[in-house]
């Protein structure tokens, strides 16, 4: 019986580890191979404080959280600077260096012997020295950790994490600070893992480096993949299955160390097979059915706004020796649609990048509402009122149509963890209101019926509409659309034209890059012609198209 209780304690600990790991790799898409290291740091901090310094539960646990969370954030920082691909090797390196520290800093960690005789937890006079006595604590703590993770996952912050996982550039373009998001999720995931480590130390009463290796991280990875990335209940399932199933090997007659290896071979094979046959896991990530709860009031989408002109003055940008944009003066006025046309490689998208902070100009200035936008990050510029869409869409394909719009709404207090955990009622009320706003926007562009569908299931024409809806949702008054209508058949175009016209009529500052001259003629009051990074002409669509020199340029 004790044996069964012991397995359940271990399941509880693995549940904490698997759910926190899922937050990192499943929700945020940050592939960090250092989870066993975080687990180990939590365990050792507790071991050192409890065994060597005699500090009682729960202080070592809390100290462990602080240390590990700080470590998590510290490890995330360089990886953030250099790009996600390198996160794998950096976190792997952390694993290696931690093992070295644990084995060699003998004075602190006991070296290869580890630390023994860690005191048991004492609660209400009871010493938790048997599996049966420890289990309630383990289960309660696991439940709390799960609640922390689940709360985060279900919050607007969690939704933004998933968006970031799908596409980082687009997440910046809707006004989210992805660096802060990454640091937060790393700190929380690391902190949760250390809680498991602390419990482990009190339960097993001794820690050594060989318990916290890459093999353990891969074990946890198998749990997350099996259960389903992006689904926390799946991680519980995965933890249960992978902790319990191999115990069945006990019934087969085998020396214990062979059994241990067979267990590992089993989960290694399971990992490969799951990835091949059912990569989404047992419990796939579900697109939420929020739209059923949307309130009936729909705030007007094209309510008049007092937008300002977006100006680029003397913009210049080079890439190596190539001049992408030079001496560009462009003013996009509110209340009408400005078209930006020109041949391939003329610098149109570069101009958009410069105007919205995705690229910094080598010379010149971008101004909106009387202030310079130079040196500001894209997400800051969005909050100041200037936003752009992308030629290659960059939709959050794993999210529902409604979630794509919801995540883009500005000023969400649910994006801040302080509110998520300490004022959830505020977040809940805001979500309810935002559902109405999001549905209004979807209905405005004609996607109301599709709110609950997965963005990846949309037809091409509907994808283009979603791009418009998402950009609109940012609340920015200056909207820059990069080829919003390319590839649309004439009847689809006819349906979308009114959307743009109404936006312009509401006073917003609009600019569209387009190649389809029918679209330009229909929508744009003013057209700017760019070639070789310079503005060559500006006028009405008719004026530009009648100009023989420009025609020649357009077709060289």
């Amino acid at each position, binding site marked *: 019986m004790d044996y069964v209780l012991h397995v359940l304690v271990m399941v509880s600990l693995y549940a904490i580890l698997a759910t926190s790991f899922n937050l990192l790799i499943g929700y945020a898409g940050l592939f960090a191979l250092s989870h066993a290291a975080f687990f180990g740091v939590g365990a050792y901090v507790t071991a050192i404080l409890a065994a060597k310094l005699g500090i009682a539960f729960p202080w070592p646990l809390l100290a462990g959280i602080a240390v590990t969370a700080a470590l998590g954030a510290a490890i995330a920082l360089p990886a953030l600077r250099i790009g996600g691909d390198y996160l794998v090797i950096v976190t792997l390196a952390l694993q290696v260096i931690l093992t070295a520290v644990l084995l060699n800093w003998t004075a602190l960690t006991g070296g290869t012997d580890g630390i023994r005789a860690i005191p048991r937890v004492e609660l209400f006079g009871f010493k938790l020295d048997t599996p049966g006595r420890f289990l309630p604590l383990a289960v309660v703590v696991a439940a709390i950790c799960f609640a922390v993770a689940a709360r985060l996952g279900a919050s607007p912050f969690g939704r933004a994490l998933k968006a970031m996982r799908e596409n980082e550039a687009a997440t910046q373009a809707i006004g989210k600070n992805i660096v802060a998001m990454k640091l937060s999720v790393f700190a929380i995931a690391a902190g949760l893992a250390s809680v498991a480590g602390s419990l482990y130390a009190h339960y097993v009463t001794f820690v050594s480096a060989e318990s916290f290796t890459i093999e353990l991280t891969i074990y946890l990875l198998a749990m997350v993949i099996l259960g389903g990335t992006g689904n926390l209940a799946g991680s519980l399932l995965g933890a249960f299955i992978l902790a319990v199933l191999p115990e069945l090997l006990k019934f087969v007659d085998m020396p214990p160390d062979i059994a241990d290896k067979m267990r590992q071979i089993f989960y290694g094979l399971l990992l490969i097979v799951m990835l091949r046959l059912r990569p989404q896991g047992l419990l796939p990530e579900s697109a939420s059915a929020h739209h059923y709860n949307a309130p009936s009031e729909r705030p007007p989408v094209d309510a008049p706004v007092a937008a300002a002109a977006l100006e680029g003055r003397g913009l210049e940008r080079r890439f190596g020796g190539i001049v992408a944009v030079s001496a560009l003066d462009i003013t996009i006025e509110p209340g009408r649609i400005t078209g930006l046309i020109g041949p391939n490689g003329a610098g149109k998208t570069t101009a958009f990048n410069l105007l919205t902070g995705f690229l910094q100009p080598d010379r010149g200035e971008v101004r909106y509402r009387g202030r310079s936008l130079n040196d500001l990050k894209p997400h800051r510029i969005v909050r100041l009122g200037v936003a752009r869409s992308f030629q290659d869409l960059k939709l959050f394909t794993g999210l529902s149509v409604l979630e794509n719009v919801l995540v883009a709404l500005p000023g969400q207090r649910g994006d801040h963890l302080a509110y998520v955990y300490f004022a959830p009622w505020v977040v809940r009320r805001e979500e309810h209101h935002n559902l109405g706003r999001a549905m209004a926007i979807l209905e405005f562009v004609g996607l109301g019926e599709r709110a609950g569908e997965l963005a990846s299931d949309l*037809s091409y024409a509907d*994808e283009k509409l979603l791009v418009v809806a998402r950009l609109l949702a940012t609340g920015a008054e200056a909207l820059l659309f990069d080829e919003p209508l390319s590839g649309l058949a004439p009847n689809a175009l006819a349906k979308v034209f009114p959307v743009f016209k109404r936006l312009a009529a509401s006073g917003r500052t609009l600019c569209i890059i387009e190649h389809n001259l029918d679209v330009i003629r229909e929508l744009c009051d003013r057209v700017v012609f760019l070639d070789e990074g310079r503005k060559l002409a500006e006028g009405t669509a008719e004026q530009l198209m009648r100009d023989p020199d420009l025609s020649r340029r357009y*077709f060289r």
Partner: protein
Amino acid sequence: MSVSLSASGLVAGYGKKRVVDGVDLQVEAGKILLVLGHNGAGKTTLARALFGLLKAEGGSVHLDNQDITGRTPARNVAAGFAFVPQGHGVFRTLSVEDNLELGGFLEHDPARLAERRKRVFDMFPILAERRAQLAGTMSGGQQQMLAIGIALMHMPRLILLDEPSIGLAPNLVEKVMQSVAEINRSLGATILIIEQNVKASLPIAHRVAVLKTGRKIYDGAPEPLADHVRLMELF
């Protein structure tokens, strides 16, 4: 010796997007077909679907009378169908010489390879001068010549070029077009050239097709398109 290429109802795209939406094309053996279209018209998708780099979702492609729909690029190369991709299709980190050798990868006979190499150097003397230079360090025009040279090493009966003029100065563009016309004349190779640069490519074309949003909206003689205003309307 040269072959004809035809596509019938070709449908291709990425995910749900039908970039090429039911296109019919014919190039007669030994002739030059020019396919015009603006960005997003589906030109590169069309090229890659014809050559087998992209799986066609519908329709068929024929080389002479043989159905080559869905065949791998390697088999097409072996059948004499060469592709010059957009953006200087060269191996940047390898020398001109090595690039050409890779062009002739499927040919084992050193004598034939030497003959083909000579033909490439005769047509593009600058490549002979720079045979040991790394392709990535050459200018855009030289890289484009090398890309065409790589195709010539296949001893092609049909060459498909995707926007060979992109990013090149006008005089180089003219040189490229002249080379293409010369290849057509001397080798008798059938040419399908996809372009955005009307002015330079129109003079060498025997026939023109115009694509707009995945469909063909014009197929006929090149002369009527010489008027740019007419073209603006098409685009």
